[in-house]
């Protein structure tokens, strides 16, 4: 039988304590936005390498080539500039490469010859260098195909599995919502419990004529409500600021709500185990980043090694991201179905609440 009064009182107490910890609540809200910003910064570095373009030819054919460079699978952010400035910029690390279209480019091509483009690459980072090296053949094949040059015998024909393209930042920010929920709700859930240890008020739980579990539920409801406000704000930024409109609105709301409840419960469990705020807050932040990557936040996790994919199943973020990507972008990023992912999240929540209640009950009895 649910002890509504105990739950309500515990929730009211937690709300009162949170209202006295405004800096904490403000920081938590800031944290939710921080993750969106951080993953956006990462996403921006994944495409459109800033590249100096020096066109000495300036003919329709060279302009057509530049258009193909620009369209080469989001590879280049072309910045026309004189060679002196380009040399300066590349040595300062402001651009990744310099592409020079030599004089006589179109003449040479029209006469059936091959023209040579000098390309200077800042090869300080092997990953960026590889992107530039691979993007140039893409632009060159597209250029040759559009101009119908004879002698090209093979072409690549693409068939997309998904009927729409999702931008990288759009993809990342939706995953970041799960990350934000993990950190924000986790920390609030943890603080709700560690405060009882640090303030030595846990002994008072023993005096309460109700089961510890109901007090825990009440505190979790309050912490979840505050976390939900922060996540709603982050969600609105994703929808309005990033124009990532959910494909399934009710699904998105339900997924975020489930994430908040789950991570608040996990936070409470961590709080009950660690009993101190300082390491728990840092732990959630520190765990968030590796969990984020090992949960399919950047791409379906199974595309990375099978072992990583297996390990990812131990993180609730894996299923959370699966559900969120479906609800926002209509994508299936896990081999498991939507129902399976939702069930896993529900089981995680039940596990966290039950274990936290058990740990707290034991500690209260000891106290």
């Amino acid at each position, binding site marked *: 039988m649910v002890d509504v009064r105990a739950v309500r009182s515990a929730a009211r107490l937690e709300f009162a304590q949170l209202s006295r910890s405004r800096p904490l609540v403000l920081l938590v809200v800031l944290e939710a936005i921080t993750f969106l910003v951080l993953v956006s910064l990462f996403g921006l570095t994944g495409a459109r390498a800033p590249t100096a373009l020096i066109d000495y030819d300036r003919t329709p054919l060279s302009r057509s080539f530049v258009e193909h460079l620009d369209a080469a699978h989001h590879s280049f952010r072309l910045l026309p500039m004189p060679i002196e400035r380009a040399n300066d910029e590349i040595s300062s690390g402001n651009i990744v490469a310099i592409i020079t279209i030599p004089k006589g480019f179109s003449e040479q091509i029209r006469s059936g010859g091959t023209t040579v483009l000098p390309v200077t690459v800042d090869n300080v*980072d092997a990953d960026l260098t590889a992107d530039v090296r691979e993007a140039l053949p893409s632009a060159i094949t597209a250029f040759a195909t559009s101009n119908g040059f004879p002698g090209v015998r093979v072409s690549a024909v693409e068939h997309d599995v*998904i009927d729409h393209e999702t931008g990288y930042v759009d993809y990342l920010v939706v995953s970041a919502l799960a990350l934000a929920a993990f950190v924000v709700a986790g920390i609030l859930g943890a603080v709700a419990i560690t405060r009882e240890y640090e303030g030595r008020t846990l002994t008072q739980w023993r005096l309460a004529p109700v089961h510890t579990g109901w007090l825990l539920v009440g505190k979790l409801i309050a912490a979840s409500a505050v976390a939900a406000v922060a996540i709603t704000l982050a969600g609105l930024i994703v929808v309005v600021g990033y124009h990532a409109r959910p494909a399934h609105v009710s699904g998105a709301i339900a997924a975020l709500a489930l994430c908040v409840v789950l991570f608040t419960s996990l936070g409470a469990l961590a709080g009950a185990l660690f009993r101190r705020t300082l390491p728990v807050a840092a732990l959630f932040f520190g765990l968030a*980043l590796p969990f984020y990557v090992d949960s399919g936040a950047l791409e379906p996790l199974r595309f990375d090694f099978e072992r990583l994919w297996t390990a990812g199943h131990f993180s609730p973020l894996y299923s959370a991201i699966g559900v969120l990507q479906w609800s926002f972008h209509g994508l299936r990023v896990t081999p498991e179905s939507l129902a399976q992912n939702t069930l896993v999240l529900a089981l995680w929540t039940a596990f966290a609440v039950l274990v936290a209640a058990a740990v707290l009950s034991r500690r209260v009895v000891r106290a």
Partner: protein
Amino acid sequence: MARLDLAVLRRSPWGIAAAIIPAAGMLVLVKLLTVAVTAQPVALVVADRGPQARVMAKILKADTDSYLLKVVKTEEKAQHLLEQQKVAATIVIPHGFGRGVARGNAEVHFWLNNVNIDIADDIRRSVDRSVVQFDAPQFGSSAAPGAAGAGLAVPNPYRVDITETDLRRTDVSFDLYQVLPVLLLLVIALGILCGALLGSRDRERRTHVFLELSPLRRSSFVVGRLLGTLLTMLAVLVPVVAYLAWKGTIAPPHGHWPPFLAILASTAVLSAAVGALLGIVLHKASTVALAAVTIASYLFFLGGGFTTIAFLPEWLRTLSRAVPTRYAIDGMRQTLFYPDLKGVAVDLVVLCMFAGVAVLAGVFALGRRTA
């Protein structure tokens, strides 16, 4: 003052752990990312048994930088792998490929799980490059006019070739390029968290009253606090740097050790001073932990620790000029990855200026509080 703070921090292992955990998390993140950004799993079906198909398959198999190839016998099997997300794409060299090559209209089909443009574009670029290698096996071997071999263009049907000049003698691996700045995150997080913790602890335990009553000069108080934080940081950082140097992860070129250590030292002073300032504003350990980790993250990310500043929008690049850690990270990369020390002096001067301003602000703020 320094001895007292050192003793307090020695008895706060959780505080030190709280500073180390985010850096450790970032290290794991970068290691995992190294796996994620490299080659993608792709299934290959070679339906044609002719020599041309074998050449095409050989090109695809040889490109181990781009593909983790699984050769499968049937398209159905490849499709199953794609559905199970065991591969990101399937490439099919269809039956009749050889005849298509003879006619000049052969096709290589690929089915792509275009879940986002990052992974999709990577595979598109790789397939295009493989196709170019079939028709232009010597692609990229021309010499630009003016270079040795004066303007030698190796003909190819695309009529465009490239000649690449690398700015550096060696490529630095993605792993190393991203991992080493994590050391700076450790410095920043340690400095801010330890510095802030000391201040907030004084308030939380009300021991600030004793400090206010002690006949300490304002400057002694601040310098003592900074010294206590710095000594704690040294206790953590010296073994880490020594281990990385012993392992060969930190291996700066000859003569680069002094500027590298100077960058670490000035970043440590800066973060300890920022921490001391934060400790004045915040009075609870829970808020200190959150605020310190958040500030350290912003300083690290906006400074280019996890991103390449040049890729960011103009306004963010302008903003990052006001972020002191940008100079620390730029300087650190220059001392470790480049043969010269171009720009390091400027980075160090700017970093020291930021550190100086932070220390002065600390003297003023802490002094005012104790007064």
